[in-house]
C-alpha cells in the first residue's frame, strides 16, 4: 500500500478538482433552472423534467467536467483514505464565498465567516489525522 500522507501534490489535485466541482454545480444548476418553471409533482413529470435537463448544453458541459474530475479523483483516492479525501474536498465551501468576495465584491456575513473558519479548521484536523496515522504505522 502506498503512503497515505496528504502531500502538497494531492492537496493541489484536490483543490483543482474542487474548482472543477464548483463549475459542475454551476452548469447543473443552470441546466436545472432552464426547466425550473415546470412543477415536478409525479413520476412522469419528473421524467419530462429530466429529459429537458439532459437536452440542455449546460448539462453536457457539466458532464465533460465530471469525466475530468473522475480522472483526478481516481488519482487522489489511489493515494489516500476516502475519509480524508472527501472532507478535504469540502474546501469548495470556503472557496466559493471567498471568490465571490474578491471578484464579485460580495459581502460575507459574520455567520458565514464562522462557517468558513469551522470548515477550515476541520479540513486541517482531518489532514493532520492522516499524517498522525503515518507516523504511528512507521
Amino acid at each position: 500500500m502506498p503512503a497515505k500522507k496528504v502531500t502538497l501534490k494531492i492537496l493541489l489535485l484536490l483543490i483543482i478538482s474542487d474548482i472543477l466541482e464548483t463549475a459542475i454545480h454551476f452548469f447543473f444548476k443552470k441546466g436545472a433552472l432552464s426547466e425550473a418553471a415546470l412543477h415536478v409533482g409525479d413520476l412522469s413529470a419528473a421524467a419530462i423534467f429530466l429529459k429537458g435537463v439532459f437536452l440542455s448544453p449546460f448539462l453536457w458541459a457539466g458532464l465533460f467536467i465530471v469525466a475530468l474530475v473522475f480522472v483526478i479523483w481516481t488519482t487522489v483516492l489511489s493515494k489516500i483514505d476516502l475519509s480524508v479525501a472527501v472532507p478535504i474536498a469540502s474546501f469548495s465551501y470556503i472557496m466559493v464565498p471567498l471568490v465571490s468576495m474578491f471578484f464579485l465584491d460580495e459581502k460575507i456575513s459574520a455567520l458565514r465567516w464562522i462557517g468558513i473558519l469551522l470548515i477550515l479548521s476541520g479540513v486541517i484536523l482531518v489532514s493532520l489525522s492522516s499524517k498522525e496515522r503515518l507516523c504511528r504505522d512507521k
Partner: protein
Amino acid sequence: MKDGLLITLSMIALTSMCDTVNQLFLKSAIDSLGFPLKANIAGIFNFIFRLLAKPRVWLSFVFSVVSLCIWLLVLGRADLNFAFSADSMHYIFIAFASRFILKEKFTGLRWLGTGLIVAGIVFISLN
C-alpha cells in the same frame, strides 16, 4: 408546504446515500487493483484502463448517475443554500461508511475534523 420539505429532505438523503455507495465502490475498486498509480499521463491512463475492467467501477457509475438525477430534481425544487446545507449529511455518511465498511482507521482528530466541517457547512448555508 411542510410535506414538500420532507420530500426534499428525503431526496437529499437519498442522493447523499447513493453518492456514498458510489464512492465506496470506487475506492474499494482502486484499493483492489493493488498497484501504485504512476504520476504521469501514461501511468494515469493505464491505471484508469485497468480500473474500468472492474465491474465494481461500473456499479459506482450507476449509483453516481442515480445520485445525479435525484440531485437535479432537488435543485429543480429547492433553494441552493438549503440543498447544500442539508447535503452536509453526506460527510457523516462517508465517515461512517469509511470507518465501518472500508475499515479505515479513525483517530479522534478525524472525527473532530469531520464534525467541524459539517457544522461549518450548516453555518455557511444559514444565511
